């Protein structure tokens, strides 16, 4: 217990701005956070779905929860049920074996719902392409609001993609 407290008060604690973060990245992260809260005024709930990725994208999505990006502090949470989700975050080339699960997850989400396709795979299958095992992307299955390219995209690009999708939701709401 004393060791834990000691580490907490030693000044290297996560809640402090990290030394490397004084630059443009940290400013952008804060701006994204403020915009998200401004648009939604509440937490954004994301259901992440791996449609056959190599797990590289999942590693970078996980990184969003670390103290540097602190995605929950920005008012974004990952939820277990699609029925609680505003946004579906899809990775992978959509394997045939995951197609049904993908469609059912989307169908279970309440409207309005957003879809963000993460990485090079959902676009056209990426390096895996289309085959007997892969659909070769998500486009023919679901309406995608934002594509985030990269293999895998770094965490800040993922945040930008989520913000861009939320921005679409806002413009859909305010337009007559």
């Amino acid at each position, binding site marked *: 217990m004393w060791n834990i407290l000691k580490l907490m008060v030693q000044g290297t604690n996560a809640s402090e701005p990290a030394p490397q973060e004084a630059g443009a990245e940290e400013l952008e992260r804060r701006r994204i956070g403020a915009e998200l809260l401004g648009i939604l005024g509440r937490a954004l709930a994301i259901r992440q779905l791996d449609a056959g990725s190599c797990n590289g994208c999942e590693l970078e999505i996980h990184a969003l929860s670390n103290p*540097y990006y602190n995605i929950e502090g920005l008012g974004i949470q990952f939820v277990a*049920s699609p029925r609680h989700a505003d946004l579906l975050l899809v990775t*992978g080339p959509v394997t045939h*074996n995951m197609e049904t*699960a993908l469609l059912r997850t989307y169908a279970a989400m309440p409207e309005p719902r957003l879809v963000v396709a993460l990485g090079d795979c959902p676009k056209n299958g990426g390096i895996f392409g289309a085959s007997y*095992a892969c659909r070769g992307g998500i486009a023919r299955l679901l309406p995608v609001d934002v594509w985030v390219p990269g293999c895998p995209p770094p965490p800040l690009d993922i945040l930008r993609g989520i913000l861009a999708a939320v921005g679409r939701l806002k413009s859909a709401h305010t337009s007559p």
Partner: protein
Amino acid sequence: MPLANLSWRPLAELPPMWHGNVDADAWLVAARSTRASGGRLVTLWGSDRGAAGCAMTAAYATQDGLLWLDLALPPGQATYPDLAPLFPAAGRMQRAQHELLGIAAAGAVDTRPWLNHGTWPADWFPLREGSGLPPPGPAADYPFVPVTGDGVHEIAVGPVHAGIIEPGHFRFSVVGEKLLRLEARLGYAHKGIDALFARTAPEAGHRLAGRISGDSTVAYAWAYCMALENVWHVAVPPRAQWLRAVLLERERVANHLGDLGALGNDAGFAFGLTRFARLREDWLRLNGTAFGHRLLMDCIVPGGVATDLAPDAAARLLAQCDAAEAEVLRLKTIYEEHAGLQDRFLTTGRVTPPLAARLGLTGLAGRASGQAFDLRADHPLPPYDSLGTNMATHRGGDVAARVTVRFEEVLESLRLLRAMLGGLPAGAVRPAALPPARAGLGGGWVEGWRGEVFVALELAADGQRVHRCHCHDPSWHNWLALEHAVMGNIVPDFPLINKSFNLSYSGHDR
């Protein structure tokens, strides 16, 4: 060497690999004698030999290195002797090869489909030469093994899990909160990578191999390049060899840091997650600065590495080793002294050493159950040969043992990284040109962070075309062991047990 009467042809010197042809009798004799002499089944794969029929191949790890045994199956013969009674992990591998190639283990007890969820016709085989693309079929039901008795009920989980997790289905049979049986159904991430290799140029295959399991991209890319370099007789410059080892150890540390944090979190200790997640992010950022990719994808290329390490980057990597070590040592003490954590870790998800040996538990999970195998120590390549690797082992076999092994492996990797970065040989990081392509067989065998990754490569058409590339993930063995590890535990401990193994779905489903 078992089967001294066979004629063995050397495939590679380091790590040592031997090739031999067997008939159906010798196939079983080899399996039995490997089992009896403490050897392990690494993997099984089949290949189409055109007019000559098919072949089934087994790779065994022995003290003499890797034995690569080919069993020819002439046209009309579609079965070979079942290895599952000797090596339980062979069962699923054989089921997968049946779906991909149409050759089956004779008399196998379990013949349920494994990778094919009804999405391609059962009489169509993706790895047969000239197979056209079939129309996808409807999803098929999977007959799980039922567990019956008073009060037994099933919990079905997946393929979409509650969290940011790869797809897979778990069927738990429970009484109250106690787990009687877990049966996994995998294959959801099956991407047809084996068939895709045949459409990939040999010198580009490392990119595909590096995306079989994103968390092990270095291990796969290295294993693929090693296989290609063995076939083409490429000499890797010493500096490139050392840099490959730097990349491999950085991948190991990154994964252990992530998992140690998640293990704390799964036991209700969010402090551990926060600290380790921060360490991991620092680690990944410096990967990006020093090597151009946070997860180190595409850094290893045929012949060497993609880019050289800048002198100032080497100094930063060294400094990071010191900083990370100090923090990991502090956290190790905290984990060890935290009664709540140890209460959750100790005796949870136990795989005893005899069971681990029987199931072929491999990699870090194997080492935590007394299976003292580590390619870095058993068949060391440069620079591991001169630096030496202190293998972390434990006999506890529980979550606590896997946590301990992970801590020790992080610290050992940091020691190795310091030695490697301090002693990097000068020179080029890839040859000026690759030697002319040639046909043949080559293997790549690398101790990834999760366990041994093996790539079997067969090049045809004067080495211009990949005839067969089989990439093996240690998860094939360890998914099976996970089903045993959870027996008798409570349902809420499953996430903790699962995370302590952290197996790859994508690497397994391929």
